[in-house]
């Protein structure tokens, strides 16, 4: 059997809390292959961070087993710590009085690098993550985005076989978050076999980065698959938004075509020459029915001005699985902890 990067079987984690214990993970099973960028997607309080803390050997499971490259998280902690690293979002760790360069060099020593090798690697990573101008700036003076880049550089210092990222773009602005995501992808692609486990509650981030995603809620994994596979669960039809210059007979003319489930007019738009246009939402049985629609439009002399396919989001997938959205799940998690 090929070696898995992560193998989790029946993991449960219960926190003693008042007035009653909190079940953070409730029988989680998971397998991640080497070289994958695997995402854990779920609202706040779903159990994502708890699972990462178990896999990074900071927390013991209440029951079940978890392995990282075949090493048990409970008994082989030293071995796992030699080949992994972790970066959390919103991390404020570090010593404010040190410079970026010094802070990172300190951590190279914890991973056994020689003094000179440590400085060399720190300088390389500072360049790679785009912190060259801040290299001699004190850690306490960094902006949020800069600090997170430094944290990411720290996570890459020992060239880990597996990198755990716990909401790495939390609190970053759009540009900083995008920059960080690009770094993550570039790092993973630089050498084959690098594995990343990423937790996030940003659906677009999971959709963009991950090879496969596990949707987590209330300590359970609800579904696992690639973003496309997960979306296919909820998208049984093809949905298009089409804009034409005119349409004799309106949407009803298209609704009766074979393969068209429904057709409805959206708000009329005005094109640049101030003519009225017609925008319609079409639900088709499959993409093949689009040909029927285009042909029918051509026969009526309508010109297609725009055509866009709508896909369901991962939130749609979540709603389908759970029956409520992410925002409602966040509120539920907050109330549960109050």
């Amino acid at each position: 059997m090929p070696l898995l990067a992560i193998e989790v079987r029946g993991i449960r984690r219960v926190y003693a809390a008042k007035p009653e214990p909190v079940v953070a993970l409730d029988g989680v099973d998971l397998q991640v292959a080497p070289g994958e960028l695997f995402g854990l997607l779920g609202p706040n309080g779903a159990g994502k961070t708890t699972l990462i803390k178990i896999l990074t050997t900071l927390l013991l499971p209440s029951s079940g087993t978890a392995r990282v490259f075949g090493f048990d998280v409970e008994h082989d902690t030293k071995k796992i710590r030699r080949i992994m690293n972790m970066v959390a979002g919103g991390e404020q760790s570090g010593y404010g009085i040190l410079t970026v360069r010094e802070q990172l060099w300190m951590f190279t020593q914890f991973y056994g690098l020689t003094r000179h090798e440590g400085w060399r690697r720190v300088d390389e990573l500072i360049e790679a993550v785009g912190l060259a101008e801040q290299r001699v700036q004190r850690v306490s003076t960094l902006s949020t985005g800069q600090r997170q880049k430094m944290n990411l550089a720290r996570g890459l210092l020992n060239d880990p076989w597996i990198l755990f990222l716990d909401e790495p773009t939390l609190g970053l602005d759009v540009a900083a978050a995008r920059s960080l995501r690009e770094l993550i992808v570039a790092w993973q692609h630089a050498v084959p076999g690098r594995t990343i486990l990423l937790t996030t509650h940003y659906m677009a981030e999971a959709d963009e980065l991950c090879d496969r995603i596990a949707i987590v809620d209330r300590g359970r994994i609800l579904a696992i698959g690639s973003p496309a596979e997960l979306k296919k669960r909820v998208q049984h039809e093809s949905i298009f938004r089409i804009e034409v210059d005119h349409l004799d007979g309106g949407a009803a003319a298209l609704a009766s075509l074979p393969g068209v489930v429904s057709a409805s007019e959206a708000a009329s738009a005005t094109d640049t020459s101030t003519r009225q246009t017609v925008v319609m939402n079409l639900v088709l049985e499959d993409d093949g029915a689009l040909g029927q629609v285009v042909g029918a439009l051509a026969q009526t002399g309508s010109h297609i001005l725009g055509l866009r396919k709508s896909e369901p989001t991962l939130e749609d997938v979540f709603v389908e699985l759970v029956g409520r959205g992410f925002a409602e799940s966040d509120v539920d998690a907050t109330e549960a902890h109050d």
Partner: protein
Amino acid sequence: MSSLASASRDAARFDLARTEGRGLADTLRTFAVAARLGWQLEANWTDPFLFFIYSVAKPISSALILVVMLEVIGGPAGRAFRPFVVVGSALWSFVVSGIAGLAWSILEDRERYRVLKYVYISPSDFLIVLIGRGVARLGVGLAGVVITLVVGVVALGVPFEPAAVDWPLLLAASLLGLGSIIGLGLLMAGIVIQTRQESWSYPEAFAGALFLVTGAVFPLTVLPAPVQAIGLLTPLTWWIAGVREALFPGGPGSIGGDGSLFASVFGHANPGHAEIVGALLATGVVVTLAAVAVFRLSDRRAKSAGLYDQTTGS
């Protein structure tokens, strides 16, 4: 959603008078809330029994160190000096609590709880918040003083006659001394705003230095004249002398005596009650004004350098 809607309706009727505050009422409320917060932080970390042990172990140990030193050297003859050192040592725990209280509040809120900047930008007067927070530690220190004195009387042979206590002097000295201690605490708070996380020990080090010059556990006459002068300019010297004189009238004093700087300057061996209170008031006012000035200066520098929202560990 309805609460958000009502908030937006209130915004349309914004009242400029809200920015004026309510003067003394706000100050008193700020103080009360800060004092309550300080007490919660100070007292809720363990069960009451352990809290009691913690509150009294340090001052009693300090007193015992001095009592043993007396026994070692003076033997039975040194016991006459015992009330002197027990009172001084007991009072010193109050001094340390007061000086450390405000400074530690700054360090806690900046380094551990990371709320200092939020407290600072709130409409509450930052100074009042600090003093309120420090009052809780003063309360713990006061408990230590009382218990140490009780232990001194009950177990260490310190002679005490309640009927002989000079209550007016005790009250005056206590109130003025409290103000001076808070002033010194403010001075330390101003200093630690500028320093890093490891400055937890600074208030105690500062108090330890003052321990040398204030006649807490030995008469000032033992010191060289220039050092005695520093002591005479320190309000704590007069406060300790005043409380000692009030509790044990006629006992050994710390300021005067034959050959003391006080005697050579003022022409008589020991200060009277009025002199003690007057000197305490004068030196206290000077120190407090200086402390406020240092604090304001430090505050301005902290804002300029962005020191209120950074952590500084090593």
